[in-house]
């Protein structure tokens, strides 16, 4: 009986909170907020807050065309795998002190799991056979490489900072980092972590493929790039993945740098974390989107490997010397 109940509880985690339903609603809502904010910053009225939901359901109702040149199975399965993997990543990210599944993944694993949705998109694009998708996936991969170096440096800096504070030397576990912040306050208050937080914040638009780093899906030059041949439900899943990735990356940011802000009640914390995600999105995604023009792909790469990596490196060196 208890086994059954525990199973039910975990199933609830996977399907409802912080799994599918939570991801679905909060991810799309966050994207809606982002679109609205960008519109308001550009003095437009903007789409309704629920626009991403409409887009999603509309796409679900459309015909799905599989081109004759595509590899059918990969083309159709790739979006599903990417989204499922992303939801699983969301399960590992602690919400304030609460994490549904502890002892299963650390920050390095999360770093790699975050690659899977991008990889799934790349493989799907590749399977479609379209040359536009080919160009798109090439750019997407370069963006992934670009973001990887600063992200690695940030994560190592955090691992070192928390580890030396705890006295274990190193700390890779996300739930440990979250617990540390619950007890000692947010990491962002430490001087060594400020550049790292800034670097991570600058990575968010790149990692989520949002403006000005959306070269991979540039609709004006390469016909939506990777998704050029996608239509209907698979496209809906891709759009959903895109939205949830925004949620995942911002909530990872919140978990790593703004942790410890919470009440200890999971449901309330969920709301608080979501509010923090909205703030982070507003500052680093919407604002950046509204004020910049799309970069060229080699500029994206250069920017991440110089400016952002430099920031992260400063943080790593500061953490190394115990600040």
């Amino acid at each position, binding site marked *: 009986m208890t086994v059954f109940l525990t199973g039910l509880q975990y199933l609830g985690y996977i399907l409802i909170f912080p799994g599918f339903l939570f991801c679905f609603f909060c991810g799309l809502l966050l994207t809606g907020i982002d679109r609205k904010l960008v519109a308001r910053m550009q003095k437009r009225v*903007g789409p309704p807050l629920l*626009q991403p939901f409409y887009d999603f359901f509309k796409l679900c109702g459309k015909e799905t065309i599989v081109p004759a040149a595509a590899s059918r199975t990969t083309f159709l399965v790739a979006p599903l795998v990417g989204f499922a993997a992303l939801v699983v990543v969301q399960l590992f990210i602690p919400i304030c002190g609460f994490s549904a599944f502890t002892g299963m993944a650390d920050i390095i694993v999360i770093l790699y799991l975050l690659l899977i949705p991008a990889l799934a998109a790349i493989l799907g694009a590749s399977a479609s056979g379209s040359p536009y998708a080919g160009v798109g996936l090439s750019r997407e991969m370069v963006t992934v490489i670009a973001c990887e170096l600063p992200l690695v440096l940030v994560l190592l800096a955090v691992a070192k900072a928390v580890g030396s504070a705890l006295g274990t030397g190193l700390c890779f576990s996300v739930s440990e980092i979250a617990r540390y912040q619950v007890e000692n306050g947010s990491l962002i208050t430490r001087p060594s972590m400020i550049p790292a937080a800034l670097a991570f914040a600058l990575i968010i638009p790149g990692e989520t493929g949002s403006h000005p780093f959306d070269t991979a899906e540039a609709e004006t030059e390469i016909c939506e790039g990777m998704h050029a041949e996608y239509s209907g439900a698979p496209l809906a899943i891709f759009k959903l993945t895109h939205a949830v990735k925004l949620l995942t990356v911002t909530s990872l940011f919140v978990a790593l740098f703004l942790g410890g802000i919470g009440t200890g009640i999971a449901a309330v914390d969920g709301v608080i974390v979501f509010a923090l995600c909205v703030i982070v999105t507003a500052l680093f995604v919407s604002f950046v989107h509204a004020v910049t023009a799309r970069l060229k792909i080699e500029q994206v790469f250069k920017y991440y490997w110089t400016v952002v990596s430099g920031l992260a490196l400063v943080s790593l060196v500061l953490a190394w010397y115990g600040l």
Partner: protein
Amino acid sequence: MFKKLIEESTAKSPWLFHINSGSCNGCDIELVAVLTPRYDVERLGFKLAGSPRQADIVVVTGPVTRQSLDRVLSAISQVPEPRCIVTMGSCPQSGNVFKGSYSVCAPLSKYVHVDVDIAGCAPKPEAIIDGLVKATEILKEKRGQM
């Protein structure tokens, strides 16, 4: 319930794919003007899509020159159902001042079923928005019949 949801959503999230079939660019500029802060069709959920695969509404401008006819038709055929075809400006409807030219194939309705015609040379943004909203209603109907 889901069917209803999808139907409602179809009307609220129409994505446009714009084909220029030899237009003088007057209509094209007006279409872009519709996206600017003053008119902002995004408030109605409209969005420009980059690929016909993602589009719901195809907006055709220009007098459908012989060079572009094949291209227009193949691009339209690649739009998934339910779809809605909108001609914009007088050219694709009648040929306008180009009518009778050996290299112009207008009207477009000879080759493919056109759902909405937006008249004008070039149409005013208000007219365009009105036409597009009509198109969304047709889209919703088509979705309901699927």
